[in-house]
């Protein structure tokens, strides 16, 4: 038994510890219970769910929660990664290893294949990104595998469009989210019924904040890819952010590379994920830095949200995660 669980077992008879109420769960325990409830509900009501797993911190937490939800049985659905081909190699290595450890089926949907088959056209130029192309690959994979529910690790604290999204979010056959016509979602009674061609995006981490994710990773002692910790890397500066050099990103003439000690706060495409200068080498140090930071996760590290005030809203309407 973990130390965090210890007070709960005897809580009814022990003296009040928090807000005068003995049996109150702490926030992480509450969030964990809510997420497990949602995961089980999807697994019970949907025919073919699938969990999106990128090797990023949120999806690592998702996978852990799924493991707990069905223990001692195995996770009863596959995991899928939409691979842009521009991912951090460290994250890909981690993804493959973790899926093998848990004995879950890993499906890799490849953006490169979508390009090769002419489903999408690659952007060109130094600011080209495969971020938007992922949507087509994702929707094709959903159709190919006949998935009716996809678990995503999105959180409502990330961004204002996500702050409005339901936990069970419905997508039509085009994968579109219609923010003006969301189903009412009351109590913990999730309506998993679908009309033809629809599917659900289920977000069990909706109510988690970035700090909750890190505290949970620490409480559970979860392994995360090495790029989340400070390491020396060749970087270059663009738009005030530090990007990793890679074969996928042509640099402009004045964008000279330099060595820096960085860590990544999110794990996305190498073309649009910026790093932050950091000396944090342990989980404790990372959590301390996150708690003290004064810039949002997406504002600091995601070039894909900088297009407009409604970048995420627009991409979600198109069927993005």
């Amino acid at each position: 038994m973990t130390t965090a669980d210890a007070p709960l077992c005897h809580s009814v008879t022990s003296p009040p510890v928090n807000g005068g109420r003995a049996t109150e769960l702490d926030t992480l325990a509450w969030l964990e219970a809510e997420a497990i409830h949602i995961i089980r509900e999807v697994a019970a009501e949907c025919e073919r769910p699938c969990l999106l797993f990128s090797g990023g911190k949120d999806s690592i937490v998702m996978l852990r929660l799924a493991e707990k939800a069905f223990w001692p049985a195995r996770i009863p659905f596959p995991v899928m990664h939409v691979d842009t081909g521009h991912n951090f190699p460290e994250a890909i290595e981690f993804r493959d290893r973790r899926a093998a450890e848990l004995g879950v089926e890993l499906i890799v949907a490849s953006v490169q294949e979508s390009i090769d088959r002419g489903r999408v056209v690659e952007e060109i130029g130094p600011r080209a990104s495969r971020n938007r192309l992922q949507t087509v690959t994702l929707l094709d994979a959903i159709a190919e595998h006949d998935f009716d529910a996809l678990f995503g690790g999105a959180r409502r604290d990330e961004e204002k469009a996500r702050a409005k999204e339901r936990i069970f979010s419905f997508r039509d056959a085009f994968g579109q989210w219609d923010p003006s016509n969301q189903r009412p979602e009351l109590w913990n009674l999730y309506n998993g019924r679908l009309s033809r061609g629809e599917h659900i995006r289920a977000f069990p981490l909706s109510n988690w904040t970035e700090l909750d994710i890190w505290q949970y990773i620490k409480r559970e002692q979860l392994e995360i890819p090495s790029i989340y910790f400070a390491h020396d890397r060749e970087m270059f500066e663009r738009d005030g952010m530090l990007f990793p050099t890679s074969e996928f990103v042509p640099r402009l003439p004045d964008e000279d590379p330099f060595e820096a000690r960085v860590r990544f706060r999110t794990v996305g495409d190498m073309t649009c994920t910026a790093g932050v200068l950091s000396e944090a080498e342990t989980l404790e140090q990372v959590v301390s830095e996150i708690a003290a930071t004064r810039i949002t996760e997406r504002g600091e590290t995601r070039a894909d949200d900088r297009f407009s005030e409604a970048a995420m809203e627009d991409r979600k309407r198109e069927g993005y995660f």
Partner: protein
Amino acid sequence: MTTATHDADVDILGPDHRSLLRLATAGSVDDGKSTLIGRLLYDSKQTFIDQMEAIERTSRTRGEDDVNLAYLTDGLRSEREQGITIDVAYRYFATPRRKFILADTPGHVQYTRNMVTGASTADAALLLVDARKGVVEQTRRHAYLSSLLGIRHFVLCVNKMDLVDWDRAVFERIAEELTAFASRMDIDDVRAIPISAKLGDWVVEPSSRMPWYDGPPLLELLEMLEASDPPQHHAARFPVQYVIRPLRDEFHDYRGYAGTMASGVLRVGDRVAVMPSGAETTVAAIERYEDQLHEATPPMAVTVRLADDLDVRRGSMIVSAQHPPVAASTVDAHICWMSERAPLRERDRLVVKHATQTTRALVDEVGARLDVNSLEYDLTASQLSLNEIGRVRLRLMAPLSVDPYAESRETGAFILIDEATSATVGAGMITSGE
């Protein structure tokens, strides 16, 4: 300018035992709700530099002199265009004592279903009133809906006190009016605070301009509110969500019933009944992942194992054998109707989802319809239109294990689903079942 503290003041590396309080805001357009939420986020240091830069830019672009904190809660494109809130937005903030989830709900009557979505999971309601206008129709409607949804703690924020010269008499008149109204709805806990969200008075900091108010600032009050009753006051209810049967040699005979504790306390060794059959057995184990627990309380997600091999499946409910729920084939309920497509009429057939069970229902009778403005019931009504609330009797195809909503939200609530569109069209709160 503030003593509120960021997470950095908490030992975030050690075990974090902060509890969670879920709030829903309610109020009408222009009474400063967005500004108040912006102020809570800003003064509790939950805003980030890039967010502040963005709202400074927006404030400048829109020709405002000061940074408008309301833009911190800016929503979707269509909402910005219309300048109103259409759907619930969820905000997160924390103090050294507690973490908060705040459902920022829309005020317009046509978005009542979204307001109900936000309020259904709240422990406390934050009601906002403009000091110049006092309690208006929308305040009463929101207070009533919140009480119907089982919220028992109300915090009345009389806002814009700066515009009424910090006048104590204005505040007291509004507070008395709402308290009188609330007592008619069995709301016993109403706390009123005079504030100026724009200037920050009594939000996080005490105000020297209203020294006559002798309570705590809003944020401190929210830190102290008790969220709900202790579970031992209620009978044990455990709706079975999922049956776990690992097909592995080491767990050959394992059969676990996974679910979320809905009410009461379930202990290993407890005598329990499995609804709807009522067959009795004993709790053999309560597990949470690899941990063996002695007991489970709401809202823990656990796996229960029983001593006997009974017919237990998704939709079954493991309950206290001494205090079982009613296995109801008809229920009387308050229903909030949320369909734009058609009204709720007698003889309609709908899908009902209650706890983890789904069945069908026939609308036997629409007995009364609430006039949300006068809060009177119209006993001659025979149907409910979009956003209307009424008393309805449903006949159920399969029995549901129900409790009155006032005693247990989790086993007293249901949703109605339109079979043709799969949409959620109604929210039900059970008053009785038989």
